């Protein structure tokens, strides 16, 4: 599903070179629930950006669903993000002027799905995260936990190969965070491949496998 080999990503900050990723090789199989952990500055955000096709490696290879994506042009990369990646962010990143349903529809719009089909699909996704009765609400009318569920429904909308969650409980209280993690576990049991990026050990504990990053390298 995900296969990174010897991936390097270096940033030039003035005269110094920051080796954010320094030869990382990672494989994630279909149906896995993997946590990527590490202290801040370890390179886990860079790894997440590359897995999420927001960034590209300087060297090394990245196969997603068997396709090489390390050299794609930005438009193709956007298509890959649309079809194969579902993002869940720490701060939800819902669009404030759109209703919950419309937020879930956004990736379907860019995927070119017809309006009627899009509504049907978005409704189904909201049902799946238990928010069918909140479809007409705007983000500011929803609680933090509900917002994150809408975000998860949006991430699931295009039926992506992987769900990529970046500190999904970071802005939630511990009880709500626990509920969101349980939702992830449930989705994983139903077959979703999940990559969870976090620096909290107890959040990472919900995953079945943990990849620890330190100084741009996989440490264990």
């Amino acid at each position, binding site marked *: 599903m995900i296969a990174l080999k010897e991936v390097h990503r270096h940033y030039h900050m003035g005269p110094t070179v920051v080796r954010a990723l320094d030869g990382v090789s990672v494989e994630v199989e279909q149906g896995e629930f993997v946590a990527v952990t590490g202290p801040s500055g370890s390179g886990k955000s860079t790894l997440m*950006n590359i897995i*999420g096709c*927001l*960034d590209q490696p300087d060297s090394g290879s990245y196969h997603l669903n068997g396709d090489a994506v390390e050299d794609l042009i*930005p*438009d193709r990369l*956007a*298509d890959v*993000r*649309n*079809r194969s990646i579902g*993002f869940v*962010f720490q701060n939800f*990143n819902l*669009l404030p*002027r*759109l209703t919950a349903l419309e937020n879930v529809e*956004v*990736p379907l*719009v*860019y*995927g*070119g799905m*017809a*309006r009627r089909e899009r509504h049907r699909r978005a409704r189904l996704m909201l049902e799946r995260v238990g928010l069918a009765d909140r479809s007409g609400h705007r983000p500011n009318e929803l609680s933090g936990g509900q917002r994150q569920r809408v975000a998860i429904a*949006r991430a699931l909308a*295009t039926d992506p190969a992987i769900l990529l969650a970046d500190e999904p409980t970071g802005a939630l209280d511990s009880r709500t965070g626990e509920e969101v993690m349980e939702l992830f576990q449930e989705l994983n049991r139903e077959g979703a491949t999940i990559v969870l990026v976090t620096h909290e050990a107890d959040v990472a504990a919900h995953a079945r496998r943990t990849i620890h990053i330190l100084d741009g390298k996989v440490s264990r």
Partner: protein
Amino acid sequence: MKPQMFLENARMSARSIAGNMVRSILTALGVMIGVAAVIILVALGNGAQQSVEANLTALGANLMIVYSGEPRGAALVRTNTAGIRPTITPADVAMIESLPPEWVNAVAPTSTANGQLKYENRNVAATVTGTGISYPEVRNFFPVYGEFFTQADVDNRNRVVTIGMQIYRDLFPEGVDPLGRTIRINGISFRVTGIMEEKGSPAQDAAVFIPVSTFQRSISGLANYQLVNIQAASPEIMRDLQAHLEQELLRLHRLPSMEVADFYIANQLDLLATVQGVTGTFTVLLAGIAAISLVVGGIGIMNIMLVSVTERTREIGVRMAMGARGRDIMIQFLTEAVILSVGGGLIGVGIGLGGSWGARTLARTAAAVTVDSVALAFGFSLVIGLFFGSYPAWRASRLNPIEALRYE
């Protein structure tokens, strides 16, 4: 790009415009004012042109005048011809009158002098015009009361006079019917035959008209005429007729060329063309000034769109993460700019039409809205939206999604 994406973009843009209504209206205000200004100012320019043309046409249809003296530029009607040495001979007039009806409809040889009118104890200064019976037709200037003098009056050198409206008011006490009454012109008695319609110009309203034969004998004592009013048969014949008249009159006067001629010919078409040139330039100038405000409005749109792109950096990052391509983002913001400018343009068209209507009915100004100016102003607002929206939209489309997502 799938056609439905345009619809989706338009929907997203409309939503973001509606979500920020006050700002959107203020942004579109510049274009609104610009479009309205173009339409109103062009309407005023056109109205001025039309009223000048109407005034010129009111002088008489297909009017051509042969003047005594050296050429004086494009003036068709000289307000005061009294005192000009007459050089147009009876032979000249006979030549003009002998031209076929396909060329000339009517001829009115004319001379003028300043005269003193007297009725009982009232004294009035007036332009005394000696002319033929075709004068009312040629100059589109008719009696409203009584009659113009007749051919018999001309043939018999009768002392009869048709008076201008202003002269009637100044010379006769209220309630006095002037028909048949006798007035004195420079001490000579004339019987009043009628009153001319009011034209609103002192040159016509403060004049009196007598048979040209009477004028030559009793007022000027000269056989020559100062000018000849001619009604050409059609506008198409004008230029040829003028050329023919110049050639024939030079021959009769034994002169080699128009440079040394003792007469000149002015025609309505040339004057109309001159006036149209002047008022056309005037209209273009007004439109140009108004167009500047349209451009300024466009800069306002660009300014707000740049602010909007910065404010919504995070939204752009999210959309990119969801699979929006640079082009999708570009079209979204471009659509927004175009909706703002075209919306402003539409409201501006409304204000422009309303303003022109107001100028016409309330301020009684000549204002003629043209379809061209409305289409031009509206089209210009569309172009301005595209032009000034493209840079902010391009900036939005080039954002790095990682940095855009991290933007606070």
